């Protein structure tokens, strides 16, 4: 209470005088770009989702307003429900496995060792590697006739003769493998730099008190890397939810529609089945999910901020 009564320190930097209009002028370029290329398309999406428009419609074709018809249809649309399930599974595996593997690797290599700089540079390579180039590599590696994966497959106790990208569940497993290859090395580097902030003396004190490695991790390391952990889990979720080209170009959503995540479904419904209205309705549900995640993130952050200031 005492702190509240004391004169408030201004949080914002207004010290070089205050200008009323300048900040608004500064954000004009970004706002124009966002209104035209993000917000306007979103309103279009919402509007189209309430009609029966198809992508082949000529200009001037009459479009009928159908209310929530498309959304009501989604509840019974088995391929939509499947795509929600696939997206969820894909995101959860990314959030837990990629981030987990990243943390595991970081904990193991969290010592100074020879060639550490080189290892770090190496580990960023997949993250920076463009999607289309990664896709070409993996299509070649996973090729059912000539791919080097054949060397591994023949020792596996499963029948993978349907192809790693063309039969279930291997297509899904392949996509997970590609995403993990792309993301976990990068996560491990971010974790590694967060681990430098773990207080050394606390770790030593815990050791003297007889804490084992797991105890030390739970009581000392984990609390101090928690912000990074949350951030990377969010990043992994966004990565999985947005991922389009690596799925679209390897499996196209197939076999059947077994790897068709929500974003791929939006694209296929419009450009393969020409059902623009249904595609928009699917897209709007995706926008709602994005909005919810952003909200959860904000709430978590403001809680963290409150905790820090107490």
């Amino acid at each position: 209470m005492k702190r509240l009564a004391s004169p408030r320190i201004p949080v914002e930097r207004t010290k070089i005088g205050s200008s009323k209009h300048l900040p608004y002028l500064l954000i004009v370029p970004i706002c124009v770009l966002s209104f035209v290329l993000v917000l306007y398309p979103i309103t279009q999406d919402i509007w189209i989702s309430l009609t029966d428009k198809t992508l082949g419609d000529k200009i001037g074709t009459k479009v009928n307003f159908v209310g929530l018809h498309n959304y009501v249809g989604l509840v019974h649309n088995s391929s939509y429900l499947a795509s929600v399930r696939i997206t969820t599974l894909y995101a959860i595996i990314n959030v837990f496995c990629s981030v987990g593997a990243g943390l595991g690797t970081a904990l193991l290599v969290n010592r100074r060792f020879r060639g550490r700089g080189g290892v770090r540079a190496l580990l960023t390579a997949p993250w920076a590697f463009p999607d289309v180039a990664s896709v070409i590599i993996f299509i070649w590696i996973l090729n059912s006739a000539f791919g080097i994966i054949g060397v591994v497959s023949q020792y596996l106790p499963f029948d993978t003769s349907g192809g790693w990208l063309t039969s279930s569940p291997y297509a899904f497993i392949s996509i997970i493998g590609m995403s993990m290859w792309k993301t976990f090395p990068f996560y491990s580097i971010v974790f590694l730099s967060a681990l430098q902030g773990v207080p050394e003396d606390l770790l030593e004190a815990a050791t003297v008190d007889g804490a084992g490695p797991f105890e030390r991790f739970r009581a000392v390391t984990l609390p101090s890397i928690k912000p990074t952990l949350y951030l990377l889990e969010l990043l992994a979720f966004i990565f999985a939810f947005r991922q389009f080209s690596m799925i679209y170009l390897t499996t196209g959503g197939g076999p059947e529609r077994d790897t068709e995540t929500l974003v791929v479904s939006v694209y296929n419904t419009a450009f393969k089945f020409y059902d623009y209205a249904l595609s928009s309705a699917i897209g709007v549900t995706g926008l709602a999910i994005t909005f919810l995640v952003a909200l959860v993130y904000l709430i978590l952050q403001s809680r963290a901020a409150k905790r820090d200031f107490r």
Partner: protein
Amino acid sequence: MNVVIGSKRTMLVRSIFRYSIITFVCLLVIFPLYWMLVTAIQPPDISLQYPPVLYPKAANLHGFQQLFQDNPMARWLLNSGFVAALTTLITTSFSILGAYAISWFKWRGKFVFGMMLLFTQMLPEALIVIPIYKMYSQIHFANNLPALSLIHAAFVIPVGVWILRPAFESIPKEVSEAAQIDGCDYFALLRKIIIPLCSPAILAVGVVAFFASWGDYLMAVTMISKQDLYPASVGLASTMSQLDTPIQELLSGALIYGLPPVILYMFIQKFIISGLTAGAIKG
């Protein structure tokens, strides 16, 4: 204190264990890239042998030759470079202005603006690519490379602001006060003090924007349908979908197209990571 240090033997075992894990992870990460290199320089009849050999038995550059002969690959790379350069320019300048507004001024609506950026950053582009395509074909912006870079910029700017904000905020108060006494106005402050002091972060934004644009496939394939306007991503994907493209040519393409961003990224990875962790701590 023996508890802490441990005996020499356990130390040795541990360090062997650690090195083998590091080696294993590195091999796992590097193998696909190594395999790309091997296939790109090896004659295809060797690559198609079974079982595959893990090292190149012969080398030639026919893949690269074919790649540039059969396709307008040089053109595609040039298109990618042009779009990416323009995206970099737009993103960097707009992000600098936006980050300046957010970190140095107090104004109403800042929260809403921040929320909009956050939302845009999380938004999967694929969800709204169709309305953008509809709009672009109506205003004759389809098949237009500068127009494509506007889309790329719109989606990467939030990341740019996010990287710049903590850097801008870290400039000490005294510096700006001194500048004010010297008669600097807002733009002089930005130009003479903030931009030079934050040049590493600005460089990082530029690189992030460059390879976001360079790597994009979705927007490019939707907006660009003329073959000579393809960026490299779309061009390579189109050769990939032709089943008769030799494997050596395809992997040579992946190599040429994939390497520049990796090299760029390795130079700036330090800034990116410190930007990310600062973001995690400060929010």
